[in-house]
């Protein structure tokens, strides 16, 4: 080997790679989420890491730029807790159950403090993450025409097609400081497998500077290798792997547990009243030391959500 080897950037980078990336949620948030960061906890209805969001609140992070297509209950909680400086999003409602009142209070009357917003459509957010994953500064896409959105978001621009002369809308790449991705399973290196709705989990992971993967199960490399097409996020982009069963509740993990729709419906009234929301956070976020305690505290309530069985047929990878 050449004698100058240890000065090479690739070698330094390699030396940072640990044998296992497994750590607790508290360690992962401590190491990889800092005050002022741009944070993306993704998952389109499916695989939303409530466990990670709650730990961010427990650790008292501040001035975050929160990004998600659908802020959902999780970001409503985080906005209410005051950790967000800015929200980047495309649809801010309680899916199937009404408004997100904490989000509305922040935007309509600056409570608990003023929240800056940067708003796109779903397609716009998807394209921003695809551009970020590809390390392109922008991507063209056909939306926004005939909408007032470009008038209120100057980040929406356009480009002239060099072939047709047509003017196409563009969005800038979104490259979060950290993406937090829930998944069904991963090995200790972070090779992550997802089935069911994929959302933008892959793009989020490739777009971000650091990636925390949270899983229902840590599996051996052999399980991953038995079905390589199931791998959505490769370990090489992953910074931390956290084992957190039931880590999505009240969101869901296909094949593990159903969405807790009763809670989504109940959130309507909780979030409508700031004091009820505060006592929810006191009890279920600040009042527990982590997801395991949350699960214990939920008790029987969770078991009714456990998934029934509907197994895939295996396929042959032999040659």
């Amino acid at each position, binding site marked *: 080997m050449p004698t100058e080897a240890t000065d090479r950037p690739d070698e330094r980078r390699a030396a940072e790679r640990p044998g296992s990336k497994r750590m607790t949620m508290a360690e992962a948030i401590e190491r990889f989420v800092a005050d002022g960061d741009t944070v993306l906890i993704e998952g389109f209805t499916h695989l939303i890491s409530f466990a990670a969001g709650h730990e961010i609140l427990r650790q008292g992070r501040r001035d975050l730029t929160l990004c998600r297509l*659908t802020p959902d209950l999780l970001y409503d909680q985080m906005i209410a807790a005051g950790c967000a400086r800015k929200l980047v999003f495309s649809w801010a409602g309680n899916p*199937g159950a009404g408004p997100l009142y904490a989000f509305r209070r922040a935007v*309509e009357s600056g409570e608990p403090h003023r929240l800056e917003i940067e708003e796109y459509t779903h*397609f716009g957010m998807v394209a921003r993450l695809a551009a970020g994953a590809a390390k392109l500064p922008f991507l063209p896409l*056909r939306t926004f025409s005939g909408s007032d959105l470009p008038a209120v978001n100057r980040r929406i621009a356009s480009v002239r097609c060099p072939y047709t002369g047509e003017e196409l809308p563009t969005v800038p790449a979104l490259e979060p400081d950290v993406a937090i991705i829930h998944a069904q399973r991963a090995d200790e290196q972070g090779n992550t497998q997802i089935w069911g709705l994929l959302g933008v989990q892959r793009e989020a992971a490739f777009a971000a500077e650091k990636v925390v993967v949270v899983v229902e199960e840590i599996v051996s490399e052999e399980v991953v290798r038995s079905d390589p097409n199931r791998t959505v996020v490769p370990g090489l982009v992953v910074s931390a792997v956290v084992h957190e069963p039931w880590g999505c509740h009240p969101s869901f993990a296909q094949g593990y547990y159903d969405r807790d729709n009763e809670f989504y419906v109940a959130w309507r009234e909780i979030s409508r009243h700031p004091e009820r929301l505060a006592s929810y956070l006191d009890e279920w976020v600040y009042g527990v030391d982590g997801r395991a305690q949350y699960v214990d505290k939920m008790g029987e309530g969770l078991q009714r959500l456990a998934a029934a069985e509907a197994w895939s047929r295996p396929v042959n990878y032999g040659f």
Partner: protein
Amino acid sequence: MARGTDTDTDTGGFTPREMMAAAAARELVDGQVVFVGIGLPNLACNLARRLQAPDLLLIYESGAVGAVPERLPVSIGDPALVTNSLGVASMTEIFYYYLQGGRIDVGFLQGAQIDRFGNLNTTVIGDYAEPRVRLPGSGGACEIALHAGEILLLAEQSPKVFSERLDFRTSPGHLDRGDARRRAGFPGGGPRRLITDLASYDFIDGEMTLVGLHPGSTIERVRESLGWEVRLATDLATTPPPTEEELHLLREVLDPGRLYL
């Protein structure tokens, strides 16, 4: 759209929302590819699948393709949409390849405000920077409005919803006249039909035109709940009421818990 409220009136053995679901289902043609929303659009599509359109292909924004939900989905990403579906697309594929790719025949949209050209506001009531009411925003609505072969609109009539001017235009309908979309180069056809709790409208020369009154409804009630003088079709019809079969399927099979009816 909000769930059916106490003001729903029973009209000859069915509710206005049952009428809307049945009327919307009848608009769907077997073999079409439909971009489905939760609530009434989902009920309409699954009703049509059980009647005239067994091969209607249901695609949900969340990525489920060819879904056959065995329970009423309560969110656009309900796990029941995935189990036994024909495929799952990532959202990059859904927006770039399916919607922008021109693969969707019919899209359903709703709006907090709708104007006479079928333009929609789901963003704010009041000023954008200092809104009186902040609504959820576009989600996928703007791109559905641009790319689906045609749009079916669903809404409950009230002057608050049907207003002459939108506070914010989230998703384009026919802009300000019949050929505006074509001139603007929009790929999809835009709103074709609007079904409300009172009546059905076609977009003729791009403008909402009353074509059918639901049983029990009157032109006067329609006029009271629109923010402008509505255009009338020359041959105004009465919507056939929901059939026994439609009502049976809606009530006993599709939404027995009356979540959306």
